[in-house]
């Protein structure tokens, strides 16, 4: 065991966000304020120790996860009931099925506009989008050059953490889903539908 392995564990324990191996190596090399660091530490060595720690932790009721580009200590999932009781959490905050659908479309197709998401889901998504942005799992990434310059949405680092993903590549079936040809917001079926509604005297539900 390398002498700085304890430092590594302390840093991971105290952190409130995932720590990247590169940053950990830097912290170890720099050393504490006014103290001596470990100038020889390399990122690869940090990764080795992280792997060892990941193996050792479950015996202590903790786990080490690689999420959002970094490593983070958490409590073991099978102990959730105990920890939830301590923290007074009744139910872990989960997303609703509509919000999950919107989340999936954003995750695989970002950056994406609301109209494009709605073209996939077939329903108004403004409410779920607000929820996702509020929860910090989606964010506005910019504006499209398309007419009307619609706002584009994408995922956040918290999205990766919330779903326990290392990075976007780790999304299940990402290859297949990214290649999915999306129905365009302005595709030929669109106007026809709207004409139909007008004829039926129903107000258009989608803006």
């Amino acid at each position, binding site marked *: 065991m390398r002498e700085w392995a304890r430092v590594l564990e302390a840093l991971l324990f105290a952190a409130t966000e995932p720590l990247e191996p590169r940053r950990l190596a830097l912290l170890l090399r720099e050393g504490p304020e006014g103290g001596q660091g470990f100038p020889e530490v390399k990122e690869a060595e940090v990764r080795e120790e992280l792997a060892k720690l990941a193996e050792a932790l479950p015996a202590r009721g903790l786990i080490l996860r690689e999420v959002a580009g970094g490593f983070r200590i958490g409590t073991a999932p099978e102990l959730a009931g105990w920890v939830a009781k301590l923290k007074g959490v009744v139910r872990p905050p989960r997303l609703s099925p509509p919000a999950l659908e919107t989340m999936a479309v954003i995750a695989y197709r970002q950056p994406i506009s609301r109209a494009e998401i709605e073209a996939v889901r077939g*329903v108004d998504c403004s409410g779920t989008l607000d929820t996702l942005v509020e929860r910090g799992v989606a964010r506005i990434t910019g504006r499209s050059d398309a007419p009307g310059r619609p706002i584009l949405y994408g995922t956040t680092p918290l999205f990766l953490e919330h779903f326990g993903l290392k990075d976007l590549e780790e999304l299940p079936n990402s290859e297949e889903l990214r290649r999915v040809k999306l129905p365009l917001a302005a595709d030929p079926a669109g106007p026809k539908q709207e004409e139909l509604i007008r004829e039926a005297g129903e107000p258009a539900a989608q803006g």
Partner: protein
Amino acid sequence: MNPGLEIPANENLRVELSAFTGPLDLLLHLIKEQEMDIYDIRLEKLTEQYLARLDKMKEENLAIAGEFLVMAATLLYLKSRTLLPVQDRPPEEVEEEDPKWELIRQLIEYRKFKEAAGQLGDREALHSKIFGRTPERVTVPTGMQGPGQVSMFDLVWAFQKVLRGVEERARAGRFAEDEYTVSEKIEFLMDRVPAGQEVPFEDLFRSMSSRGEVVVTFLALLELIRLRQLTARQEKPLQPIFIQRVAEGGARAPIPDREEGDGTGQPSVETPA
């Protein structure tokens, strides 16, 4: 579908609309229920089932989202189209492929994302059982703590009082709304609060008559407190708040890097676990 949603045994058709995330979801459910091949949907049967569901929901006085009605219209259109002989179709449509395929494509694409959403949901279920350390409660910068010091809430409370005063003045008929910037007001405050002097909090806003100006000035004040340039003092709760400069020697705390913060713009202090 929705866990926890109970379907009465005697009425297995009774599935609430809220169980479906949209008309495409309902269609997929019906296609599965009718054991249809998605590439070979029987429009007539599907439309019939779909409308039956909608009727059922109407009977139960459930609000039906507009999108469900749009889909009903689309299905009826597609069905009616199959009844027309090809030569009777509008000329612009004869050349085109069957619009039914547009719906099928949409269903297939939607289904992929629905499955992906399901997988995300599974991941979420697992990872919501893992607790990590959360940032400590945001603590007030040290410059504002200690006996005789002012909490964030005191400041906000005092600020609200100022704001109310401004609104009354504004009602008295002032319109000119200039643009103010925080950096401009930072300079203003540094001028207004010379070293070695204490200025009552409310005096800082005395000359101001617009809500915008007061808000921007308050933001500038918070920024200066955060940057350890100014500090607030109060003898006792509810007594006037005074603003003064931080003594030169007192500004030892390094100015926190904005990028390093926790996103709230407030430096948080870790307490030992």
